[in-house]
């Protein structure tokens, strides 16, 4: 039984020696790179068999069937025959970079005190040295949105590459949106005596809704003032919501919450609205479509909402929305380390829902990019977009195929070493030398 199948020998020469820190970020792309012979999953539904992709200065210059793409002068050509090339997975609605060890308070930076915190920014707390981040890109997650949690208005999220010296150069999109938590229509209370949950109408929600109404009205008025004095940091942070430069992300799961919150946001003058959660969004697809509101579905590897619900409903949900014409991204919600499995959520959505794997891929690539307003840079492997992509042994939506051999972020080749691989190699040595 003492056989070791190296991960295709591509553990980047780090099979000996243990490095204590995360590896250095990728160097900027200095010469054109051409990857040939792979199955290229563009991310828009198209698949190119025996394809070639070329990129230079971080930008994709050509994609097509081998032979139709000519390598630019001075290009480094890498034969990846039999492999698969995918756009990097985009993981929205996470706490990646904001938390390291859940049970150690000192490592938690995602929840501020207070109810109205539009001014707190994930941007500046994002820790590029997190040991979790390298494990994500190892599974093809190349972009993560770090999102503040808690309160009625939680704060402002930013979107980062899974590689970088610090938040300043890792960031893909700064302050892309403000997150609010719509008070749920039904609320659970826990009874210690019987150890049961009781779920019923939430009678206290109107208070929060009124708070939103007042805050948004005052923020909108504040936004009309050119040079407000004194400055109100909270209201100032909300200004971009009203001119459409950032998203309003509304956490809402129940059908009534979804309708109510979207109507509220529209009336409040918010231009771009995204529903996050959306467990019951399949009931209100017509409304979502009419209002052109996309949905970020939280982890679909969850149990159904009620004992009588279709046992596969969470798995089917993204497909139901997609088929109804609602733009949908799949995420892990406020998780961090688990987001490396995001591709498998998409795979499950295809296996149990009425969508093809190529459609499901879009739930974690193109649709996610569009939602954060980065569709021009990432999300698909089309000419002119950034070369943020990966080469895998097989289908990255399947556990057995998701063996990532190469990752390029903005054209730079990323070192795929991580703490877990270092420990793996260390202990392989123990048993080999015994």
């Amino acid at each position: 039984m003492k056989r070791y199948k190296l991960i295709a020998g591509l553990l980047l020469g780090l099979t000996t020696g243990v490095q204590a820190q995360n590896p250095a970020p990728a160097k900027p792309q200095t010469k054109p790179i051409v990857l040939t012979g792979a199955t290229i999953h563009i991310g828009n539904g198209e698949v190119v068999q025996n394809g070639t992709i070329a990129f230079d200065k971080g930008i994709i210059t050509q994609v097509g069937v081998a032979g139709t793409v000519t390598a630019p002068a001075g290009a480094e050509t890498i034969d990846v025959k039999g492999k698969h090339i995918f756009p990097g997975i985009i993981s929205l609605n996470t706490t990646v970079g904001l938390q390291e060890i859940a049970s150690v308070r000192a490592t938690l930076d995602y929840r501020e005190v207070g109810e109205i915190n539009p001014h707190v920014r994930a941007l500046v707390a994002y820790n590029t040295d997190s040991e979790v981040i390298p494990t994500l890109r190892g599974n093809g997650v190349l972009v993560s949105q770090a999102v503040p949690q808690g309160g009625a208005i939680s704060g402002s999220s930013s979107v980062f590459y899974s590689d970088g010296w610090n938040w300043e150069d890792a960031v893909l999109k700064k302050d892309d949106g403000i997150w609010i938590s719509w008070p749920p229509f039904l609320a659970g209370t826990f009874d210690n005596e019987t150890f049961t949950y009781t779920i019923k109408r939430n009678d206290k929600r109107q208070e929060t809704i009124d708070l939103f109404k007042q805050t948004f009205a005052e923020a909108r008025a504040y936004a009309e003032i050119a040079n407000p004095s004194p400055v109100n940091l909270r209201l100032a942070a909300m200004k971009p919501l009203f001119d459409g430069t950032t998203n309003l992300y509304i956490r809402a799961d129940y059908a009534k919450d979804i309708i109510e919150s979207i109507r509220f946001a529209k009336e409040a003058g918010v231009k771009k609205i995204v529903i996050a959660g959306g467990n019951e969004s399949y009931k209100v697809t017509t409304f979502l479509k009419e209002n052109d509101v996309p949905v970020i579905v939280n982890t679909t590897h969850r149990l159904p909402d009620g004992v009588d619900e279709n046992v596969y409903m969470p798995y089917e949900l993204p497909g139901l929305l997609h088929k109804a014409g609602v733009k949908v991204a799949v995420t892990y919600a406020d998780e961090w380390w688990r987001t490396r499995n995001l591709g498998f959520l998409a795979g499950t959505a295809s296996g149990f829902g009425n969508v093809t794997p190529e459609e499901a891929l879009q739930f974690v690539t193109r649709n996610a990019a569009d939602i954060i307003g980065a569709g021009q840079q990432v999300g698909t492997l089309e000419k002119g977009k950034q070369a943020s992509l990966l080469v895998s042994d097989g289908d990255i939506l399947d556990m057995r195929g998701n063996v990532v051999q190469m990752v390029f972020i903005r054209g730079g080749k990323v070192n795929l070493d991580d703490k877990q691989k270092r420990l793996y190699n260390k202990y392989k040595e123990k048993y080999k030398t015994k």
Partner: protein
Amino acid sequence: MALAVYCHAQETFPRNGAYDERTGRYAFTNATIVVDPKTTIENATLLIEDGVIRETGKQVKIPAGTVTIDLKGKFIYASLIELDSDYGMPEVRRAQGGGGRQTPQLESNKKGAFGWNQAIQPEMDASILFTPDAQKAADLRKIGFGTLLVHAHDGIVRGNGALVTLTGELANKAILNSKASAHFSFSKGSSSQTYPSSGMGVVALLRQNYYDADWYAKGGKQKETNFSLEAFNQIKGLPSFFEANDKYSILRADKIGDEFGIQYIIRGGGDEYQRIREIKETKATLLLPLVFPDAYDVSDPWDAEVVTMSQLKHWELAPRNASEVAKAEIPFALTTSGLKNKSDFWKNLRTAIEYGLPKERALAALTTLPASLVKADNKIGSLKPGMLANFIITSGDLFSKDNVIHENWVLGKKFVLTALDAPDVRGTYSLSLNNQPAGKLQITGSPEKPEYKIVVQDSIKITPKATLANALLTLTYQQDKKTGGTTRLTGWLSGNGFMGEGVLPNGTVIPWSAVLTEKNATIAAADTAKPKSKETGPIVYPFVGYGNETLPARETVLIKNATIWTNEKEGILQNADVIVQNGKITKVGKGLTVPSGGRTIDGTGKHLTSGIIDEHSHIALFSINEGGQSSSAEVRMSDVVNPDDINIYRQLAGGVTASHLLHGSANSIGGQSAMIKLKWGASQSEMVVPEVKTIKFALGENVKQSNWGDVQRVRFPQTRMGVEQIYFDHFLRARDYATRWKNYNANAKKQNIVPPRRDIELDALAEILGNERFITCHSYVQSEINMLMHVADSLKFRINTFTHILEGYKLADGMQKRGIGGSTFADWWAYKMEVKEAIPYNAALMYHEGVTVAINSDDAEMARRLNQEAAKTVEYGGVPEEEAWKMVTLNPAKLLHVEDRMGSVKAGKDADLVLWNASPLSVYSRPDFTMVEGTIYFDRKKDEEKQKSMLIERERLIQKMLGEKVEGKPTQKPEATMPRMWHCEDIVGIHAEHIHVGYETGK
């Protein structure tokens, strides 16, 4: 009530004033006497004297000096008996509990030479605590009760009950039997002690208490004085009542009784119909409450969705419960306990009768049966000569809708509820106020309960408030709702009607009268509503939406032309067949033919595997952690299996056929695990695999309570250093214990010596030492894993499986050498300090080192896609696919020592099979069906049909509920209550301050 007509004063008590002893001799003549549920005598006489029935019958000679009361048209019944009452008992203050905010209390705070646990109170004597309560007594008499069995509803062992009557006199007189019964429950009551903190802990405590009492009687008392055990031995032989409150608690209580040769009388919860077969098998007599839920307000379809099918169905079926219990020939008595409003008793009882409860059974359940249960059928419950004069006089058949109880006699003492001689004033009267015609007064209803209506100008109908007593009538009403003034009339019966004085809203005092124009006017009663159908939907097993009306049957099946993952040396067979018969796989091969009576399932293009076995699961359990002590080896998860958990069905839908249900990780030595087969709809005992004898241990942050907040710094151990000593201490004691029993059993003169005290905690540990029980140990970091391996080496016991074992890759060689298996997660890490060095290559490294590796869930969600988790071992470390698949099938079977029955597709093994639409390791794969022992419990097509039929049944029930709302019946807001989802780390009473997604799952 304070003014008793005469008094059976106590002989020994001095009197204030002249003695007033009377014979109390009464004859009730011309009555219909229901002597007992089977004997009714018409036109009969009941003769009582001095609180006792002298004669009952048609030919009763009435002695001189008897007060004779003519009861023509009236009925006499024995008064009713309530067996579950806290009447006259002190109020129980529940312990401030839960939330884990208080410091653990490891020892009893009860003063005196009592037992160690506050919840065990056999010394509590209801007859001493008993203090009559005049108001409550009156309320109970109003319902018809004469005798009650009372006990203090506090604790697990609640001491003895007392049989008392509702005489309204001193306790000295009221008590019929001061030691009538013994009482038990699953509730800790006012106990503030930490142990027990779980359902299985309660069972263990009670079992241990029986053993301790036995030991005490056999000589233990020479070693210590223990008033609790002494009292327990005194009450042990009394009729024993167990408060259970729901169907599965009934079964749990009965199982305890079986162990000690005691047949408890068990108070149920009104949901017995949901498991009637199993409850009948207990042979227990039940106390049934008549508690029916109100309809939910389901007018808003989205609001209504929170209400589950089982709630909707229970609403419809609850009134049928008593009828179902009667139909199953289960003996039962009825109780008012559990009713928020005791006055609903008759309404609910009549409803139960409408739903098919025979009247005779109902009467027996309130009289003769309870009397015999408390061994008082020679005194109460029927009207034979010599019995106590405890009876009620009614206007008609006790169970008819308009029956009125006139009088309730207790020990020969009269309590009037509704006057016997009420005049019959029914009729239509012409009403005049201030000598002006003012419409009609209509009096309908029964003579005892007249109903009044004032009709003005034939169109305005007013229902006045009315009282009629001793021929005096008071009427108050609002003539005009808009102006709002109230007219008040008072008057008296006079000739052909009423007359008297009234006050108008403006203060004018006027004369008024009502003159009879038509006697006994048969005015159409409002009872035009057609009798509602008592038809109900079917009872399903288990009692949830996805339950089945009839359980799926075991089949004879040929599965043809599939890709079969055998997990045997044959490997993966292409285009192969499997035959299933009598719950077993009988043949695996090619070109097989279907046995007669069987059916063929086409497996073309599909993959057939043995079912997934989840080595670490907490589904289908009512509780999870007995965290009250550092060792809870005495608790058994099999005591708290919940067959109604929807996660059983959900996991079948993910290809799981068996789950190893573990105790949590709250303490170093947890409880005895239970393995279940996921037979959806079957009973607890049908699901549990009894030959699997395992126990949960735990190491690390949970057992040292690192993440439970600062109040949890009391219980030893608080460090990994302490954990080692817990094991040494317990196993050394267990070894010594085993030796003591061995010596005792070998002693030829053992009859003459005190036996060792039976200790069910040490029993379990001794089984480990004897290699009869296998350890699954929750573990993370290498230091502690190494420690436990060394402890086991030195004390010569075996560790079967390290579960979680996230650093197993660091010690895989040590595990392999000792034959210890590793049951791990595919890729979990980063949620707490002790998982910082967890790596997804763990399974692969252990596998390559020769360790038997399983991938488990510890999570109801992950369990339904364990095939995907297994596939991750292919991604991380390149485990071959067949070997990866064994990690969720054959390997857990090996770790649980059931590989001769489960874990592979092989002739002779259990037919636990899954047919997948693709390779089971593919993310795109899903089960077509999941079979357990030859029965298909999940079928994808049937599941789709089921969802449709559930919608129809749901809508039928909702329409029925909406009808209730229209009729103005009370409704409740939609809500649902569900048991908490369990994980390893969930502790009763403990909540981590910073519960968070990954962390909360407690892996």
